[in-house]
């Protein structure tokens, strides 16, 4: 048996943070390139996408943050039996402080009562971490850096919503998600990826909506009904013409990812996690051989 309690992944977590902050995933960059070609020549939308793509390259080349708001770091850790999640949590906090000292992260944790910035991204419930034990003999870590601008336009609806004529069904979901895109305008740094959750309670619904953002853009929903809804909302949101940065144009969203969970008979929540174009996700896999860590890989 491995003695997984002795495992120290601090330096690997720091590298994971660096990658997430400085290296936009390939599916996001490809999608932005396609969007640029799809905008009118010489338009403000085309100009915005051009600047975004130049910035993505520059950040990768210089290993500097894509966006200065390096967001809430959200870690989803899958681990085998025997790992000390207490220790992993401690290592993640150390890694966040190290990444801050290296300017990969901005000091982003502010005491809500005193207004004081902790200076190293440490704080009460900060960074966000969730640990999931699984039956595989590897550790898999997903990290998302979610900025504040897009978090501020993320929202939650309680159906039925009479103003939007949104009932407790997928048509109701379509109506409220389109409303959320309209409400956001350019304030969430679109073009956006929308993580949507149907059901749950208020808390679990918001969490589920964020977890959708780990899905790749090309990933289509396993549920055919939800896959169709993802496609419909994607097309209709783009018809609204809000465009990159709210400058107007053809690209308002780059993807829509929907998940569903059980709910109480009395509640029907729809949560929308609006993610800016800087959808900074990165993942890491740790494999073991004969009781020792054998390989760490990033994606």
């Amino acid at each position, binding site marked *: 048996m491995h003695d997984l309690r002795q495992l120290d992944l601090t330096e690997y977590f720091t590298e994971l943070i660096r990658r997430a902050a400085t290296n936009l995933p390939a599916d996001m960059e490809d999608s932005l390139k396609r969007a640029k070609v799809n905008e009118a020549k010489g338009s403000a939308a085309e100009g915005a996408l051009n600047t975004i793509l130049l*910035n993505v390259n520059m950040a990768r080349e210089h290993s500097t943050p894509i966006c*200065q708001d390096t967001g809430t770091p959200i870690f989803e850790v899958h681990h085998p039996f025997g790992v000390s999640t207490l220790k992993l949590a401690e290592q993640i906090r150390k890694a966040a402080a190290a990444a801050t000292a290296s300017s990969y992260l901005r000091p982003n944790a502010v005491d809500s009562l005193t*207004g*004081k910035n902790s200076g190293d991204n440490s704080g009460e419930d900060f960074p966000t971490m969730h640990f999931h034990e699984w039956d595989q003999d590897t550790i898999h870590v997903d990290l998302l850096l979610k900025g504040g*601008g897009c978090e501020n336009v993320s929202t939650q609806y309680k159906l039925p919503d009479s103003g939007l004529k949104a009932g407790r069904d997928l048509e109701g979901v379509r109506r409220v998600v389109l409303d959320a895109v309209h409400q956001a305008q*350019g304030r969430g740094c679109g073009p956006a990826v929308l993580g949507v959750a149907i059901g749950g309670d208020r808390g679990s619904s918001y969490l589920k909506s964020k977890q959708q953002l780990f899905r790749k853009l090309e990933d289509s929903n396993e549920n055919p009904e939800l896959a169709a809804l993802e496609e419909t909302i994607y097309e209709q949101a783009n018809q609204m013409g809000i465009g990159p940065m709210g400058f107007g144009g053809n690209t308002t969203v780059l993807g829509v990812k929907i998940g569903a969970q059980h709910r109480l008979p009395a509640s029907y929540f729809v949560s929308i996690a609006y993610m800016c174009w800087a959808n900074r996700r990165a993942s890491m896999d740790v494999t073991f051989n004969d009781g020792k860590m054998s390989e760490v890989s990033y994606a």
Partner: protein
Amino acid sequence: MRRLTVPISDEEIRDLKVGDTVHLNGIIVTGRDAAHKFMIEHFIRNEAKPDEVELRDELKRLFDGGVVYHCGPVVKQHEDGSWSFVAAGPTTSIREEVYQPEVIEYFNLKGVIGKGGMGGNTLKACHNQPAVYFHAIGGAASLIAQSVKEVVTVHKLEFGVPEAMWVIRVEDFPVVVTMDSHGASIHDQIEAASKKKLAELLA
């Protein structure tokens, strides 16, 4: 595309229309939530305390014909104590809507850089002053940091790195005019057009 250098004249501002691309040059100052609240409470609505008069006068000098930038940067301090900007994109401007008109008027600001646009009161202040709202590309932080050639100094560092007032010299900082001094706002136009489209999609 046109180039403007701070201090900017009223004529240059009146010449700008929404949709214009501008490259900004010269000394500008960052200021976001804590800085705006501070300027309002300590200088504009109240008499400056004796130990804050110097800062007030320095800001008056920098902002006369100048530009405030809604930004909370990632900075690096070098061994000799000097600073440089690592990542410096705009933050959401609408949070400053309650403060911005008074700040524009008190300091004779000619421009506000941010993202997401601002509301009716700022648009009115832009018309009266005159001034404009420059939209930077949200998230383009590494690219904008490259246009920050020098960190001249920093004020109110006790607010924390993102909230401090960084005095910076920029070269060819790329922005788009989205609110002009003639009452036009791209944000209002897009809001109205997309609302109409939404109504069709929900019909």
